[in-house]
């Protein structure tokens, strides 16, 4: 059990929670993740560690409400408890001075790119960051990203904020004009795929952080397997960070869809139950 110390609404769909988890905080490194369960009947959901504070013993998670479990998580309040919280899992990203790096965060991927940008900055890299979302109201952490970047670029698909279009068009401009030693990208699979295709053209080394479906998160089930460089890897122990030029993104995307029907059903039944409960209270 861990206690939620702080909760923030970052966008209409994105929430942040700071939880008290001293053991996890003590060992956490940028790039790692946790697996949590909301209650006795909950599923195990992996979430990237967005920030941590060793002294305070806290870990920050940021999540988008997309299914029943994340909606339920989003309903918890400060002071509430999360049933199980295990981590830090996976391998951290290599912290060293590569030279000039570009950090790309798309959508909720802005949260996990932040600790990576921060770590790379601390190592003395020149950090150029690009963050993007569908629309202005889905953007967050622009200020935070600024503090860990030498340059920050912003794009929205609809042009409601920053540059209109995708993060890749800004990235292409940067790659055209500068010598870049490393690109790190976190976001939706399509975005990471497009980034990797682009950087391949420029032969720029690229790291992506993958988010397949997981169960245990400790290498015990193989649910999170991905093909990297023609080899089968378990994301939870071999990753989650991999060479973007080697990842089979199409396979990853197909595997993320395995439970679409079930996820939809679970969400619908939960919404129905909630609506019933609310009307029950309303009529009392």
């Amino acid at each position, binding site marked *: 059990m861990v206690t939620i110390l702080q909760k923030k609404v970052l966008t209409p769909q994105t929430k942040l929670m700071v939880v008290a988890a001293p053991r996890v905080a003590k060992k956490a490194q940028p790039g790692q993740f946790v697996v949590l369960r909301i209650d006795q009947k909950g599923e195990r959901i992996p979430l990237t560690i967005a920030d941590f504070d060793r002294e305070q013993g806290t870990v920050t998670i940021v999540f988008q409400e997309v299914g029943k479990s994340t909606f339920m998580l989003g309903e918890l309040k400060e002071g509430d408890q999360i049933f199980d919280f295990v*981590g830090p899992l996976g391998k951290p990203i290599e912290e060293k001075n590569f030279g000039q790096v570009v950090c790309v965060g798309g959508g909720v991927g802005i949260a996990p790119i932040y600790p990576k940008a921060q770590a790379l900055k601390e190592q003395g890299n020149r950090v150029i960051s690009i963050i993007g979302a569908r629309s202005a109201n889905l953007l967050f952490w622009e200020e935070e990203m600024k503090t860990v970047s030498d340059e920050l670029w912003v794009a929205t698909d609809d042009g409601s904020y920053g540059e209109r279009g995708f993060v890749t068009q800004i990235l292409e401009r940067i790659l055209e004009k500068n010598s870049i030693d490393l690109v790190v990208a976190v976001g939706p699979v399509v975005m990471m795929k497009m980034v990797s295709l682009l950087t391949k053209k420029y032969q720029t080394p690229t790291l992506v952080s993958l988010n397949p479906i997981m169960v245990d998160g400790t290498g015990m089930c193989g649910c999170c397997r991905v093909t990297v460089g023609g080899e089968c890897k378990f994301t939870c122990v071999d990753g989650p960070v991999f060479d973007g030029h080697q990842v089979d993104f199409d396979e990853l995307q*197909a*595997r993320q*869809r*395995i439970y679409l029907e079930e996820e939809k059903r679970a969400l619908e039944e939960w919404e129905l139950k909630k609506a019933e409960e609310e009307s029950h209270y309303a009529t009392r």
Partner: protein
Amino acid sequence: MPRANFLGRPKMPGRSVADRTKDFDEVPLGLSPEQAIEEAQRCLQCRKPKCVKGCPVEIDIPAFIGLLAEGKLDQAIAKIKEKNSLPAICGRVCPQETQCEQECILGKKGEPVAIGYLERFLADYEREQGVKPPPSVSSQGKKVAVIGSGPAGLTCAGDLAKMGYAVTIFEALHAPGGVLVYGIPEFRLPKSIVLQEVDYVKSLGVELELSVVVGKTITLDDLRDEGFAAFFVGTGAGLPSFLNLPGENLNGIYSANEFLTRSNLMRAYRFPEYDTPIKIGRRVAVIGGGNVAMDSARTAIRLGAEEVCLVYRRTKKEMPARVEEVERAEEEGVNCIILTNPVRYQGDENGWITGIECIQMELGEPDESGRRRPIPIPGSEFVIPIDTVVVAIGQGPNPVFLDSVPGLKLNRWGYIESDPETGATSIPGVFAGGDIVTGAATVISAMGAGKKSARAIARYLQNSE
């Protein structure tokens, strides 16, 4: 010699196929007291009992059976518990036919005493009465960390606690029990029984910290700093093997570990009441011929698959699964496709499995394992149309903990090298046992290893004073 000796063993009352395949409840129902006592009376009470030698934890089998035959149930179960703290589990999942019962003299002419059934009967009797908390012992004032809460870890922890050591078990998952909770299905081993056995170990004073991955959340060195003076590693053989065939990452292909974990640990068979889903197609193929394969196939039937087949490259005779389990699976409708080996998976445009291309095999000369080696018959390829595949071909050592301990000596298969008598590893104060040493084996051998290590750890701590 009572006449009853010559009669066969009682038939274990069980649920009909039609009834049991509809749910996940336990299949064998247990002997009645009359049946149990009558069966106990069949025991010859050999002066030099061979059955005891067949038991990896050396339960005094004739003694407990003798007490049972006299109707002294409390004393009989106490006798078992001197050696085995998890009898309700062992009575259900031990392969007695290749252990104690194989040695029973009665088995030479007729049927051996049903030692497993009797063990289960007594354990269940005790549970119904309410297990008595053991007497507390004086503290030795030393802390021992046990890593992993499978049968090896639970046994080692329980025994050390009985000797007065302060034991904490660290478990990576959110529930204790190891394979007993994530692997073995409810219909063979009800989880409530595992929980009760875990509670018993806790009642001995053992602390249990769940959701702690040793090597990630905390390291061995951190634990040393926290004052732990000795360690037992019982992390199991939890790494699922795949066939490494083209198409193995298609949607609808599970490792047995994932399939069983979703169903058992996460209770996906009760989705959406429980949040974890599981996908079960109309036609399911389970690849493999061991107990894990049987558990997967029988789980698939209960999840509603219309057709379930086992694909195995040798013949039924070579299957490593218990005969009883193969029989149960076949009764429930599982179709064994033998002498058949998958060569590649076929999928559709959305990345879902549609079939397994297989090749027929024939048996050649025996290999190192003594089983006849299967050889592919060229040109015999054929396709089995399939919606869901479960790969149940074995497990290896999970590297998460091992990678975090430099200097820990491993054998050539990647398991921990340890002294078979004590569990001592290449690092002083660190002991290991169970599947992480032997590779996937049995509950009882893991318990036996936990026991030996408990004694060795106590000696180690006394000597290091």
